[in-house]
């Protein structure tokens, strides 16, 4: 309930933000930041009460009988999105120097609201509504740069996401057709008929567009590399994660120990095929993502393919259809969100254009700006799973989920092997960019970015460090 209140509050803030942006540089940003901070506070105060299980809410009965669910996974992911969003808003107030900023903040806060909505939707139609809202606001944010490239990226994104939404809608219709219910919890029932299973698979595929699952990921590199930095930061850190959570959401009702099924009860209908589809998509995503990232000459494109690979790891965890898999996925969303958005913020203005984010033009940037070098280097190392940062534990959890499910099917052992091989592959390109950007010879003198601009990025890295050194603090909220 409180989360929704917070979400509504955000929309309100967005309205306010529009006119105030003309008055003062920081006003709009501060309003949205305050709203996000309030949401985070509300979320935190409410958290202990959701640790027990799933709370189902229906705040409005008629005529829009939307249902919401709140449990540890939704709360944690909403928290992730809000933390990233907060950092991005703080960053944006420093990033934009001139021009109209009001609509940007408005869109951003609407997007935050839709992200929380997606995360806590309790029925498929509510999920779809917020999903569409997320897509539209993300489209607005991507094209905010107004350059030709960001327009092109925006159009590609809109096109792909549009088809994805159609598939989602079709899937929802099929599930409703076979069960007569659109509640998330009833998905288990839909799998009793083969038509329902097809619908569910199509639903997964549609959600997979936004989550950048290979072969539906093709819009992502353009969006990551051509949109304004704050957009790239929030899309990479929050939207991709929430989109994966969308998949998690429809998988969760099938998971023994996921909260929907009574303990010991298996889901209705044979789900082996769904697991296989998820496993195949996971394998494709991580392999294509990592291999493509190996040969990128542009840092932002490299980061986008690394996100595709990370989506693959999360899907691998989800494919096990087990409680450890859910924990692993949610925890990876958190770790990836912090680090990826922080990398974009660290790159900042020097990489705001495609030329500027080429590996060659960023070469040695960390040498002339030590703080940037430290941030960029640490975040890259952290992202490939080096301790003492949080991603290290994510990798362990993903493999744990796979090995845990191993006795149920050899495919999971093979997938675990694929994950570790992919992790090794990824070290190649992460370390390469560290070598070039942080340690490479400088081609000329560059100005150091003011320290305050790096503050949001530093805070996110610090959170990741805390997660790595004291994982029990963060994991206590999801277990």
């Amino acid at each position, binding site marked *: 309930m409180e989360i929704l209140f917070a979400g509504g509050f955000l929309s309100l803030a967005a309205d306010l933000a529009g006119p105030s942006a003309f008055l003062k540089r920081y006003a709009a940003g501060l309003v949205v930041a305050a709203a996000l901070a309030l949401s985070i506070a509300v979320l935190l105060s409410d958290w202990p009460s959701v640790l027990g299980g799933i709370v189902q809410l229906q705040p409005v009965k008629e005529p829009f009988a939307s249902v919401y669910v709140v449990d540890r996974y939704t709360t944690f992911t909403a928290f992730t999105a809000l933390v990233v969003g907060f950092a991005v808003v703080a960053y944006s107030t420093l990033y934009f120097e001139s021009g109209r900023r009001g609509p940007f903040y408005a869109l951003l806060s609407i997007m935050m609201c839709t992200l929380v909505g997606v995360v806590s939707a309790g029925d498929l139609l509510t999920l779809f509504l917020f999903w569409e809202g997320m897509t539209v606001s993300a489209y607005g944010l991507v094209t905010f740069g107004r350059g030709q490239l960001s327009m092109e990226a925006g159009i590609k994104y809109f096109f792909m996401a549009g088809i994805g939404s159609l598939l989602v809608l079709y899937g929802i219709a099929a599930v409703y057709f076979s069960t007569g219910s659109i509640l998330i919890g009833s998905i288990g029932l839909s799998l009793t008929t083969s038509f329902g299973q*097809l619908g569910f698979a199509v639903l997964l595929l549609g959600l997979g567009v936004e989550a950048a699952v290979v072969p539906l990921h093709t819009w992502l590199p353009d969006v990551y590399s051509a949109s304004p930095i704050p957009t790239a930061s929030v899309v990479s850190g929050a939207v991709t994660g929430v989109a994966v959570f969308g998949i998690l959401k429809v998988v969760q009702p099938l998971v023994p120990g996921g909260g929907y099924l009574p303990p010991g009860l298996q889901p209705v209908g044979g789900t082996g095929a769904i697991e296989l589809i998820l496993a195949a998509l996971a394998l494709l995503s991580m392999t294509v993502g990592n291999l493509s990232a*190996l040969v990128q000459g542009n840092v932002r494109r490299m980061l986008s393919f690394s996100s595709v690979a990370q989506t693959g790891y999360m899907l691998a965890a989800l494919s096990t259809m087990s409680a450890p898999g859910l924990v692993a996925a949610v925890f990876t969303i958190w770790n990836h969100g912090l680090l990826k958005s922080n990398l974009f913020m660290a790159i900042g203005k020097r990489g705001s254009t495609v030329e500027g984010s080429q590996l060659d033009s960023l070469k040695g940037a960390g040498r002339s700006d030590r703080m940037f070098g430290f941030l960029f280097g640490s975040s890259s190392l952290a992202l490939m799973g080096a301790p003492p940062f949080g991603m290290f534990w994510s990798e362990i959890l993903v493999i744990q989920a796979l090995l845990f499910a*191993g006795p149920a099917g050899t495919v999971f052992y093979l997938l675990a092997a694929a994950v570790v091989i992919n992790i090794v592959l990824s070290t190649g390109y992460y370390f390469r960019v560290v070598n070039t950007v942080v340690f490479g010879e400088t081609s000329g003198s560059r100005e150091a970015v003011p320290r305050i601009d790096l503050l949001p990025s530093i805070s996110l890295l610090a959170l990741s460090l805390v997660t790595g050194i004291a994982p029990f603090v963060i994991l206590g909220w999801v277990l």
Partner: protein
Amino acid sequence: MIIAAWLSWLLPLLGVPLVVLAARHSGRLGGWLAVALSGGSVAAAFYAALTLGASTTEGYTLWFPPLSVTLQVEVDQLSVLVGAFVSFVSLLVVVYSLGYLKDEPGQARYYALVMLFVGSMMGLVMSGNLIQFYFFWEVMGVCSALLIAFWSDRPAARRAGLKAFVVTRLGDSSLLVAVVFVAVTFGTTSFSTILGPGGIASLGTGTIFVLGLLMFIGSMGKSAQVPLHVWLPDAMEGPTTVSALIHAATMVNAGVFLMLRMYPMIALPQLSGSLADVILAVGALSALVGGACALAADDIKRVLAYSTISQLGLMFAAIGLGNLTAAAYQMVSQGLFKALAFLAAGSVITALGTREIDKMGGIAKLLKFTYAGFTVSILAMAGLPPLVGFWSKDAILSSAISAGLFPTLVLLAAFALTSLYGFRLLFRVFHGHPGEAVKSPSEPPLSMLVPIGALSVSILVAWYLIQAQPLLSSESWLPGPYALASSLSVIGASLAVAYFVYLSGYQRSAALIRSSRGLTSLRDLFHDGFGFDKVYGKAYDGALGPLASAVSRLQTGLVEANTALLLLAVGVLFVLFAVGVL
């Protein structure tokens, strides 16, 4: 005692931020703070060693709840022995750094990474469970790669850091699977539980073998065993202090340490020695390959790196032969004499400004102190009694003699190679005619000489401590008379050969190698490290590179192509539905 074990690794780790702050103020201050922290760690580790009673495990806080991991220390003979030795060498290397890195930029980064490394190595040694062990194992890997690339102005140093990271991660990923498998299977990774009767021993034979193999592959990466050894010679691009500390004395031992810790698994009767045989084979092969390459390398540090590969191979061979005490002592003695060799080599490199052996020579009288230290180190490496190397190597040989003729011959060949390259280095660097780099070299500052002196003394006296107490098993591990006789004759013969080939008749032997095609190609084979790098390079250029380019071409940037891919995915789904898979 147990508090000391905690302090020995927490002290350097908690000190990292302080070192950064201090070193940003002044590099020297950061250095001295690092010395103080290392000193504290040494005191704690030695206190734990001296007051060791029964083996104890102590854990606090649920550190990583999903796998029920607590922060644990395990204090037993193995951990206190290795802990005391690691902290001791670390302290000396940090002291040496004060002089060696004087006026270098980037001291904050250097001392912070070194302290992080020392804390992690001590944390690894004291770890009570596999997850914690793996955590520190990975932190060390990061520190190692970043320190190799410390002089980042050099492209070679950056490449070497990358290579070290990728190659060791290959091994690490294997270890990761093994560790998580143990955690998932037993609900705990605590050594005392998984090595107990209800632990790994209760698994099927095939599972144990695969599990052991996965862990061993991890060890091979970290401890630079063939074929995962290729990163270590390149790692010599890092500062010599880093080579001495990480790539000779401490981190490279972590793989051996893991095998020692997990030895009850290797020795399980149902495996009937199969895992031990694999370890023995890899160890013996590495000992030979490393030794042969050390004979042909022309960079003083690369010689020492190949020598490390060879010596680590001997430790694995000892584990394969079941002589744990000999393996542990070989670890300690190799750490001491190799750290000494590197520190002395660092003083030579500082004095002459080159790493190439061909440009050195005839400096024995100019750098007397360094020469004395280096000689002690080479003699210990060759295994001359009563220096530390003798006891551990001959104990390994004794085990080989009782195991059969073949391992004995292989080990004797490795010993011969050790003496040969050791004396070659000694003669070519310090004796003979002065090379072109020799102008007017002088001894390094006191902060660099003191560690050289301290290590030399420790090599001279450590044998007394070692032979006084058989730490790891009550069985006699001391070398037998056959081992003594054969190894002494090998050392003598090698010394004679090295004298004629590399000192008195150097011009003649060099001409002989040049004129004989067979000898030239043999030397080139050794010099190129048996072509491992070329094979790996070809594998990348021929397979992975083209594959990556091909895959990246999927990204056309065309909306039509993207949509086609999407529709293809939907199509596949429908086909699956039609054929009844769904």
